[in-house]
């Protein structure tokens, strides 16, 4: 009897689960590709131009290309949870991070064949700079109480220009193989390096969320800043902290992006990625109004978005038209997850069940 009751509500519990939407979307995409063309999932071992054995295939490319998005989604989840808004400047600050890193490794020149500064230092500088910009955004949000989207509009407008200014509007190019390890492949390892970096960062966040109070405090501040203040937390500091953490994520994402090609195009690098990152957070079942969050949902959401992008590319959708298709998907998702629609659907189900009973 008990089993039957749980069975009845199984569907409802399933659809209510936070990860239902991303998992369902992923399954739908997988199913679509399986039916349309199973070769989508084929993975082959090839040799790249440097003579290293590398894996190639759509799935590998999804895992590889989603890396930046996953990193941004992690940071964006925290920011969303604590401040109830999103940072729309992540793409622009990625350009800044990339610009700083390239300027350092190129030694201020337009092109370089070997790195002029230790890579570690360059990346560290990139992280520090974007954390500073994160702190700027965070300070506007936390201390001046400006809505996150509007506060980050400032960096969204200025970021790419600052990135161009850092390099005097030149397009630095580095031809050092070692610089590209992080964005392509390590010699002898057939899996793209960004996948490892992403896994490492996910692990770091898992540990941080498990062993510190960051997650709890962030949620407390996001749910009710006033009551968390009365409970001895400092909501302003915690909001600021989440923006600084996002800054660090952005720097690493920017590093991966520039090390894919060894160059940068200020106006095009990571274009529209802020939209994808916000979408990933929403897809992961997180409320965009802040409060409770699930980082793993966002991570899954990021992979789903990249999966969708790769699928669309496979069917020769030009990259410029991609946004239109994504928009349709977004609208469908948000409409289906809107509380009003959910309520109506469940009511319809109930009434149809009632009608069925009456007929019986």
């Amino acid at each position, binding site marked *: 009897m008990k089993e039957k009751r749980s069975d009845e509500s199984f569907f409802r519990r399933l659809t209510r689960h936070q990860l239902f939407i991303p998992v369902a979307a992923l399954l739908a995409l997988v199913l679509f590709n399986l039916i349309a063309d199973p070769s989508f999932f084929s993975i082959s071992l090839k040799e790249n131009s440097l003579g290293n054995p590398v894996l190639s295939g759509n799935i590998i490319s999804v895992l590889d290309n989603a890396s930046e998005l996953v990193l941004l989604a992690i940071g964006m989840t925290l920011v969303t949870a604590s401040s109830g808004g999103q940072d729309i400047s992540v793409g622009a600050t990625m350009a800044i991070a990339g610009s700083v890193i390239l300027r350092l490794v190129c030694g201020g020149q337009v092109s370089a064949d070997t790195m002029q500064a230790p890579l570690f230092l360059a990346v560290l500088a990139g992280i520090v700079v974007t954390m500073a910009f994160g702190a700027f955004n965070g300070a506007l949000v936390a201390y001046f109480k400006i809505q996150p989207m509007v506060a980050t509009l400032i960096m969204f407008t200025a970021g790419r220009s600052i990135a161009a200014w850092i390099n005097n509007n030149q397009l630095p190019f580095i031809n050092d193989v070692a610089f590209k390890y992080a964005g392509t492949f390590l010699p002898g390892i057939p899996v793209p390096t960004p996948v490892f970096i992403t896994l490492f960062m996910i692990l770091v966040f898992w540990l941080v969320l498990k062993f510190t109070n960051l997650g709890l405090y962030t949620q407390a501040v996001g749910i009710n800043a006033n009551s968390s203040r009365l409970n001895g937390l400092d909501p302003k500091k915690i909001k600021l902290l989440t923006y600084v953490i996002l800054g660090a994520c952005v720097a690493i994402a920017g590093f991966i992006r520039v090390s894919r090609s060894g160059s940068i195009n200020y106006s095009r690098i990571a274009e529209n990625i802020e939209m994808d990152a916000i979408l990933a957070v929403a897809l992961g079942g997180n409320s965009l109004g802040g409060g409770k969050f699930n980082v793993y949902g966002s991570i899954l959401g990021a992979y789903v978005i990249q999966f969708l992008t790769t699928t669309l590319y496979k069917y020769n959708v030009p990259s410029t038209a991609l946004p239109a298709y994504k*928009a349709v998907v977004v609208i469908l998702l948000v409409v289906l997850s809107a509380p009003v629609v959910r309520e109506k659907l469940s009511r319809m189900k109930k009434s149809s069940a009632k009608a069925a009973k009456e007929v019986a």
Partner: protein
Amino acid sequence: MPKEIAVDKQGRLAGRPAMSDTNMLLTITVLVFFVMYIAAVVFLGGGFSKPQSFLNILNNNASLIVLSCGMSIVMITGGIDISVGAVTGLVCMNCAVHLELQGGSIITALLLGLGIGLAFGIVQGFLVAHLGIQPFIVSLAGMFFAKGMTTIVSKEPVRVTGESFLAIKNIRVTVPGLGSNNKLGQYVPAYVEVGVLIALAVVVILFCVLRWTKLGRSFYAVGGNNQSANMLGINVRRTKFLAHVLCGLLAGLGGILYFLHVGSGDVANGAGDEMNAIASSIIGGTLLTGGVGNIVGTFFGVLSLNTIKRIVSTLGFDEAWWSNITVAAMICLFLIIQSIILMRKNKK
């Protein structure tokens, strides 16, 4: 719902003195604009002292004025619409293709443009007001959709060469009393384009609507406090819906004005205009928390934004990046002013 409560509190605290908020922010904006422009005339002279150079700011930004008005209305109700720039581009492209490649008439192109804007407004308004989805996400999707559709319609720039269109495009309305002598000593009357007259008419109409009609007042009420607006008997959903429809319609009109100004359809048309519109509204004293704003302020916001852009480029910082950095600094400054005003108010 914690966010809602915070907004509610602010609305309640603003309460009756909400209008003085509007007036104070409006005064700051207008003052800043005049001080800036007079300083530019005094210190930079030349390009700024001619009446025509001031009118050119209007000529170049007729579409932005209309977009910003729509944006302000949505922002007053507590929402946001970041799709307006992309809709502008889509309208331009569609009008251009319709006129040039399909041989359509100007009237149908006009209706097409307004129709596209209206469609975006209705869909987005429905999703925001009736399904309760966050306006940012909805208009984000709208922006994506419009951008993608623009390239689907045509990737190549389409230049309109029809004579009847060019005749309208080149109408120059001379402004009596304003003019200057050119280098040859001939008197050149100052002019504005047709688009400017339409934009100014929109500003005046919307100012009246917001100030004296029931609909206009309910925009403020809804933005100030959803719940109390509801208790006052205002249909919150309908009001929000209408705000988005109006914004969409104005985005369509803005697209037409943009098209009238540049005379071609291009993927890059209207790019970033949503940010310019938001910036103009903010500079004009519209609060993103809703309930506070003024169309005249928005108009001056557009003027201020473009004056500072011109000042920066006249000062010799004419690389493209300086313009963006100035706009950002300007938004930052005004946001901080607003936030300080609000915080002081809330403390009292």
